[in-house]
């Protein structure tokens, strides 16, 4: 790793950039320009966020707050927990634990630290990790392994049997740091009674684990408050996503990222609610005026994502879609399966908070419906799994085409994506597989990725 990358802490540097961005959002044009000139890696993106007005500013504020929580956790006597994006942070916040959501932090590093993230990824290889593992964890994990951030205190994941590559990254980190490890484990079915019982037992054990790690008892009122906040957030998210069904969709594509980035990290905290409220107001305003959420105003085509987005090199995918008048209708990453969500079809969760058992059941239900956990735990064409979900979403949101984006580490989805694509094509949805790494443009440059995407749109008459 270049010596200059070791000069400043990773979390510290990301936090500094974000908080400066958040502060300058209310500044004069001169102040904005001055900052933009000083942050070459972050410049394009910061400019883009600022262009989104209040939601853009609140995203910067919220994300800076999240980084600050990680940065100050140990100073404030809190525990740091390595965790994954498809694990709800609610229980961690309730226990006063700061979740380090590796995938989200990798995205932050990718966006703000440029090529540094590739070097952090390589630190993992030096520690013995495989290069074929998922880059979404490797990026930020490398910075932690290199000692550029505080050592985590324990690990909590829920991905064994969902995405083993993901689970393996966290198991590796736990072994490397020699810290406690807890896995929530899911059977390959979703709604069977024995699956529910398994979830409950597993979640109760998790609470015991967290109590042991933190030395504090779970505060039921605190958990109840966090769950109440999540309910508020859920209602807003459901409304926003309902609006994505409108033609044109009044919801800007970047909102999908805003939804999941803060929901995965600050779900249940007021910063997330504030951002969502602001986004809803903006989308409603667009809808009232019959405007699309695209910066050009005109919606020419609609795209549904069947897996994740693409983040390497300053979120080029979002810009690509926006500049061509293609509405981003969201995807698997921001479908949380609330009971009220338009796509839930009786498979959704709702919160009951009268007793601890009710809360545990509710959280277990919520967790088992988070991205990946819900769709890819069993065979792709089994009831309630990937194919059924994508077809359902496509029917309800009317995309012109669907897109798969992942990383070469997505062993599970790469094992079945060809079959999924074939079924979606048969169902009448042109589908393109982006063959790059969503977090690492050293695998395939964005230029090459964009070229292939252009070819797809051209050949399928979608340009």
């Amino acid at each position: 790793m270049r010596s200059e990358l070791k000069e400043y802490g990773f979390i510290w540097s990301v936090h500094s950039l974000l908080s400066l961005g958040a502060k300058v959002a209310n500044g004069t044009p001169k102040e904005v320009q001055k900052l933009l000139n000083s942050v070459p890696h972050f410049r394009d993106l910061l400019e883009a966020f600022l262009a989104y007005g209040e939601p853009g500013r609140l995203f910067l504020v919220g994300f800076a707050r999240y980084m600050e929580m990680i940065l100050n956790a140990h100073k404030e006597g809190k525990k740091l927990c390595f965790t994954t994006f498809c694990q709800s942070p609610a229980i961690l916040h309730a226990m006063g634990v700061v979740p380090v959501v590796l995938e989200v932090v990798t995205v932050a590093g990718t966006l703000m630290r440029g090529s540094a993230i590739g070097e952090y990824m390589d630190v993992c290889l030096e520690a013995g990790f495989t290069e074929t593992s998922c880059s979404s964890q490797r990026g930020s994990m490398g910075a932690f392994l290199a000692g550029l951030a505080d050592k985590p205190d324990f690990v909590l994941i829920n991905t064994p049997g969902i995405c083993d590559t993901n689970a393996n990254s966290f198991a590796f980190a736990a072994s490397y740091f020699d810290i406690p490890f807890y896995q929530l484990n899911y059977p390959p079915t979703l709604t069977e009674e024995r699956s529910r019982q398994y979830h409950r037992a597993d979640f109760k054990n998790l609470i015991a684990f967290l109590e042991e790690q933190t030395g504090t008892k779970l505060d039921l009122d605190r958990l109840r408050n966090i769950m109440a906040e999540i309910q508020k957030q859920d209602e807003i998210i459901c409304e926003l996503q309902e609006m994505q069904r409108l033609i044109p969709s009044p919801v800007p594509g970047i909102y999908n990222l805003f939804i999941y980035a803060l929901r995965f990290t600050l779900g249940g905290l007021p910063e997330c609610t504030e951002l969502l409220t602001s986004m809803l107001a903006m989308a409603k305003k667009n809808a009232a005026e019959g405007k699309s959420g695209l910066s050009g105003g005109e919606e020419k085509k609609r795209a549904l994502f069947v897996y994740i987005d693409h983040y390497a090199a300053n979120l080029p995918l979002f810009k690509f879609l926006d500049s061509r008048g293609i509405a981003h209708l969201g995807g698997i990453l921001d479908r949380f399966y609330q009971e009220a969500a338009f796509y839930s079809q009786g498979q959704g969760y709702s919160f009951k908070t009268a007793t601890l058992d009710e809360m545990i059941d509710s959280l277990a239900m919520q967790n088992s419906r988070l991205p990946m956990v819900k769709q890819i735990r069993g065979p792709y064409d089994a009831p309630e799994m990937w194919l059924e979900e994508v077809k359902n979403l496509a029917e309800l949101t009317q995309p012109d085409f669907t897109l798969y984006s992942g990383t070469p580490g997505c062993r599970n989805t790469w094992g079945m994506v060809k079959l999924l694509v074939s079924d979606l094509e048969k169902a009448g949805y042109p589908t393109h597989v982006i063959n790059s790494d969503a977090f690492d443009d050293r695998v395939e440059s964005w230029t090459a990725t964009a070229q292939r995407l252009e070819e797809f749109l051209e050949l399928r008459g979608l340009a």
Partner: protein
Amino acid sequence: MDATLLEAASQIENPLLSEFKQKGGKVIGYPCSHVPEEVIEAAGMLPFRLRGIQTRSTSIGDTYFGPFVCSCPKALLQNAGRGRFHFLNGVIMVQACDSMRRLDECWRKAGNDFPGIVPDFFHYFGVPHKVTDYSIAWFADEIRKLAAALEKQFQVTITNEDLSRAIEETNETRRLLLRLEEIRRRPDTPVTGTEAMSLILAKTALPKKEYNKLLSKELKKLEKKSNPKNVGRLRVVLAGSVLDDVSLISLIEAEGALVVADTVCFGARAYRGEIPPGEDPYVTLARRYLNEQFCPRMFGYSKQRLALITDRFEAGNADGIIFQNIRFCDLHGSENGLFEGRLDKVGTPTMRIEREYGTMADEGRIRMRVAAFLETIKKRKNAA
């Protein structure tokens, strides 16, 4: 070495399997060591562990799987697509690791293009990733469901007595293989790693009773024998990804070493842990098959796995450990990396190789690396 055992180890089909089929016996295939073969035995059927041997390409596998997937399930699908598993009456698909569990869909979909390759009985079998009282209870229930599905499909009844008998028969196999392990540990062992692996692999394709008889006979011969030429040969332990043929071991031994122990799937991992009698057999099966497998798909148990490898290294009086993983097997690959670093710190000679599954696709490279590794061990020993 007995010709029947050798043939069963090196070929997909063998005479005893054909004979079993001709007598009306049913054969059930499965791709992972987490499947309790005793249930299949108890149903009077032959449990057949699927192997990718005899493949020369993965063209069929590549058609259905994506590019970044382990070549092991691709080779299995290749054999299925080529009709080499034509004798199967059923298949149990397993939630093993990411690559292997996707064999379920890929095989089913390939069936549309290669008619007749999907047996009527195609059962998806879940396996928890942790060992707790509730995961054992869930898994016992999953095993009961498997038994019920076999009963329904093949119109048979599996009683607890049948199951206990099958458990005892499989325990006998485990005891025999542990005797083989003891023989391998001797300084003048008469058996090479290649031969030992052949004896172990044959277990996966033969009727249990016949296999136990043949193995027992073979062990009696080996226990009386010794090979002074093996005294002083460098002794290595093989760890890591699945290994279902002898080519890698034979390559290592061709370079002068002796593979005296392993912790690989198909190898030692498949015969650890006798099942005690007495309890509900489904619960005892669940406990054994979750506790004893030591595959890194059981996340959070790396200390135990390292302890097992170290134990094999010490008990086998070995000189080094060869860690290998199939490309895209990140579970073994990254754990190998971790273990390599840990063992290096305590002075244990290790090497780590990444390879493709099956017949030696990059034999020259691996041969050179193994030779260099053995050379370094020799130098260290001479310097000591």
